[in-house]
């Protein structure tokens, strides 16, 4: 039964991938969705058994790496963390599968798409259920691979190809961190099993010289998380990943891919606890990510990019929660975020579907009349994202802000995340206003045909909306119980601050866009234009990386290693140089044979003289 939760998505992926032609587009959709529903129901049962009945389950499958120094099993571990992640992954993935059958309807490659989606889910489940680092790494790389395949789903588009390669390569940078962390863990602990490593972490950290090693391990792990969870520095792949179809964005951003990094941090909590310095860095990077991506989200014009940057921002919150040692709160926010972010993405998909694949918010507007259902869903998702009281986001987001305030030595992180809450509210309302409320800017024929989707497009939205409203309230006691979390005692003003800020941001966005929209169109000074361009181009991060890093690496690769070394020095001392030299030498030698008899006579004479002197000389 525990194995089935993993195998069902794999079965769906294989069947849909290999026999997609046999079972047809409809069949592939139904079959993969059915497998996912099976997986979801089992994971609910697993949640009941392992978490509510607190019976952690370990399954050893077979030996994998088997040497004297290191023995690693294929093993599964179902504890509270895994069960929660399973619920998140399978439920979001199931809904995305159902949504995809409607959204991708008419696409000739639907079986391939469903196969990739199921494979993605399979690798993610493998990631969260593993009981050791190498097996986690299989899932880690697998979701990277599937993100490549899915972003690149429309493989005839050059932009999709570039975005997919970027996602793959930027992720690899983080993966190197994870590999290094595994090496360091092996060197330090002699084992890669979670149970062995975590139980000895405190003892090892006590050792005279190894405190620094634990810090190093945690920093390497964090580099892995930075790559996968799109934190500051390696976040540039995430907005570009919008080139894939919208359900893919929902899957990548809500439930699976980006949560893997946070999951790694939560899973490695016993290690992180031994490294205060690493925790500090985690907090700082997370809070900076939250703030910085929220500012970018303010000015983006692409519907999906706004939501993508908000994903980055919310991941920053989760990382901050990890950094201040409140891992279960981080997991709680991860779960809640999965629901409302999936809702937002799928609603955006519904909008895009209604407007005949238009993604630019400047060409939308007025959809409140034609698609009131999607509007409602978007409102629920956005309010939840803003942390509106009594919706899902409120229970985790505000708690993270309060807990960040409690860590007095990181006041700066607290203020960064509080301000990003303000910005979050602003861009959420901006998105809703420009898409639904403002006067329409779309073409008449497009606007006239704007419509709601079929039942399998709307049903996932309804379920996710229910999740976005109730999940936080229903599960908060359960998730808080994973780790003793006391709401901190802080001034009431600080407690109210996030809500006030959110309301302020929301109101100001609405007022600015509704009443004084002219404020945006007055002739602007060069400074404001420059700052707009600066924010719009994501703080020029892509430019900086491309200009200072990628370009130099390419130059290095072409000029130094290829032209100077491979085709230069090595060729000269290697095959080409030697053969040229040999040809010259033999040419010179054979030129001695001029065909003139007297030269031959001279050569014979000299040769005879040398020979005679050589034989005679030693005897004198």
């Amino acid at each position, binding site marked *: 039964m525990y194995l089935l939760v993993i195998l069902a998505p794999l079965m769906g992926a294989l069947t849909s991938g290999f026999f997609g032609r046999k079972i047809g587009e409809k069949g592939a959709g139904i079959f993969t969705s059915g497998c996912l529903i099976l997986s979801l129901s089992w994971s609910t049962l697993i949640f009941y058994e392992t978490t509510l009945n607190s019976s952690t389950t370990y399954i050893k499958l077979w030996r994998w790496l088997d040497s004297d120094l290191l023995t690693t099993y294929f093993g599964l571990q179902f504890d509270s963390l895994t069960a929660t992640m399973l619920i998140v992954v399978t439920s979001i993935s199931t809904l995305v599968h159902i949504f995809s059958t409607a959204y991708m309807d008419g696409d000739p490659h639907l079986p391939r798409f469903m196969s990739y989606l199921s494979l993605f889910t399979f690798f993610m489940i493998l990631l969260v259920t593993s009981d050791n680092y190498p097996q986690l790494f299989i899932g880690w790389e697998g979701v990277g691979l599937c993100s490549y395949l899915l972003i690149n789903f429309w493989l005839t588009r050059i932009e999709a190809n570039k975005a997919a390669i970027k996602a793959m390569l930027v992720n690899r940078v983080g993966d190197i961190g994870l590999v290094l962390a595994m090496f360091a863990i092996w060197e330090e602990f002699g084992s890669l099993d979670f149970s062995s490593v975590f139980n000895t972490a405190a003892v090892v950290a006590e050792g005279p010289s190894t405190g620094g090693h634990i810090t190093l391990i945690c920093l390497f792990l964090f580099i892995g998380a930075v790559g996968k969870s799109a934190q500051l520095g390696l976040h540039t792949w995430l907005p570009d990943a919008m080139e894939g179809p919208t359900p893919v964005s929902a899957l990548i951003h809500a439930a699976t891919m980006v949560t893997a990094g946070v999951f790694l941090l939560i899973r490695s909590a016993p290690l992180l606890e031994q490294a205060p310095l690493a925790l500090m860095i985690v907090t700082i990077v997370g809070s900076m990510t939250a703030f910085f991506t929220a500012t970018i989200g303010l000015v983006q014009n692409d519907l999906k990019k706004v939501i993508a940057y908000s994903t980055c921002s919310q991941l920053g919150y989760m990382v901050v929660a990890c950094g201040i040692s409140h891992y279960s709160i981080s997991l709680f926010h991860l779960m809640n975020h999965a629901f409302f972010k999936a809702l937002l993405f799928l609603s955006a998909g519904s909008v895009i579907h209604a407007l005949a694949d238009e993604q630019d918010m400047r060409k939308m507007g007025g959809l409140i009349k034609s698609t009131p259902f999607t509007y409602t869903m978007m409102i629920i998702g956005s309010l939840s994202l803003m942390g509106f009281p009594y919706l899902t986001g409120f229970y985790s987001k505000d708690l993270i802000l309060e807990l960040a305030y409690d860590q007095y030595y990181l006041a700066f992180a607290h203020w960064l995340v509080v301000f990003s809450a303000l910005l979050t509210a602003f861009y959420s309302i901006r998105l809703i206003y420009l898409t639904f409320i403002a006067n329409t800017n779309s073409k008449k024929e497009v606007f006239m045909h704007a419509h709601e989707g079929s039942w399998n497009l709307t049903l996932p939205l309804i379920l996710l909306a229910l999740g976005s409203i109730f999940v936080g309230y229903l599960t908060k006691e359960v998730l808080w119980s994973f780790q003793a979390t006391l709401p901190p005692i802080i001034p009431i003003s600080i407690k109210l601050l996030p809500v006030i800020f959110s309301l302020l941001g929301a109101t100001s966005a609405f007022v600015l866009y509704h009443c004084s929209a002219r404020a945006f169109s007055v002739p602007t000074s060069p400074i404001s234009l420059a700052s707009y361009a600066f924010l719009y181009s994501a703080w020029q991060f892509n430019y900086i990386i491309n200009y200072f890093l990628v370009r130099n690496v390419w130059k290095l690769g072409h000029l130094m290693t290829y032209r100077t070394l491979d085709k230069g020095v090595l060729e000269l001392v290697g095959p080409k140089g030697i053969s040229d030299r040999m040809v010259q030498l033999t040419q010179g030698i*054979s*030129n*001695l*044979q*001029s*065909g*003139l*008899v*007297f030269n031959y*006579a*001279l050569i014979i*004479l000299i040769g005879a003289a040398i020979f005679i002197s050589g034989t005679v000389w030693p005897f004198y």
Partner: protein
Amino acid sequence: MYYKYIVVAILLLLLGVLGIVLNRGHLIIMLMSIELILLAASFLFLINSIVIDILIEQIFTIMILTVAAAESAIGLAILVAYYRIKGTIAVKSLNWLRG
């Protein structure tokens, strides 16, 4: 006592060798230089035969004379045949077989 004779013989030998090496002219001069070398060698044999009083070197000399005669006969025959084909016997033009 026979030192002068030996010097003369060696000088003759060197002259013959130089005649082969420095000769850019006719093949006949080359043949004549070879004859000179052989004669110088025979001369050395004879001198040595007198000096160490052994007869076998004189026998060698007679055999060398025979070989030299045969050699010059064959050499001249080749020369004539070559002249018929080429129309000249300049050594310089004898460079068909380059390496």
